[in-house]
């Protein structure tokens, strides 16, 4: 069966510090991978998605970047965090556009 792992669950970082959130998927190959951000328990904002190794599509200009160094690994990064980067970050995968499976999320607080 397929599983998705996202870590850490909670993160408190000072303004100006770097960020690295990691997401890995098991039990499938060549998945579509996604990074979303959710503010205050509302809708999901798509940040990045990837349909293959090294292929990254950015949805909104921001202080963040994404990379896919391996087929089942998706990383969200920042060189210098801003206060506005605080939020709940979710990684997801899908075989196509049907049935996203989400990770358990990372609560990021920038202080």
């Amino acid at each position, binding site marked *: 069966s397929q599983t998705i792992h996202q870590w850490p669950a909670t993160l408190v970082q000072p303004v100006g510090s770097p960020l690295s959130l990691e997401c890995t998927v098991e039990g499938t190959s060549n998945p579509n991978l996604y990074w979303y951000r959710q503010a205050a*328990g509302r809708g999901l904002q798509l940040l990045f998605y990837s*349909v293959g190794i090294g292929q990254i599509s950015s949805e909104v200009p921001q202080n963040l970047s994404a990379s896919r160094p391996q087929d089942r690994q998706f990383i969200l990064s920042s060189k210098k965090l801003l206060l506005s980067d605080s939020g709940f970050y979710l990684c997801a995968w899908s075989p196509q*556009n049907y049935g*996203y499976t*989400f*990770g358990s999320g990372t609560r990021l607080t920038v202080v």
Partner: protein
Amino acid sequence: TQLLEQSPQFLSIQEGENLTVYCNSSSVFSSLQWYRQEPGEGPVLLVTVVTGGEVKKLKRLTFQFGDARKDSSLHITAAQPGDTGLYLCAGAIKGAQKLVFGQGTRLTINP
């Protein structure tokens, strides 16, 4: 631009009552999905509807996809406190490898 509009955004009702949540758009979707999210966790897929006019039932939950594939509804019969959560609809646009999410409906069922 919000492609998917969910209504209501907040709903608080008593246990045993019925309710309907709506998801509307001017865009046509190849499929539409409904997710339920608990606080601090990732959304969990409830159902995917693909065909215009399709109706799917999941115990007390009934999902309908509009004939023109632009809208959907979620009806809950005899709501229970365990139904409390954030309900999200998401549409897949043909040819795009991503989902568009609505802003969510926060549902609270009071005992």
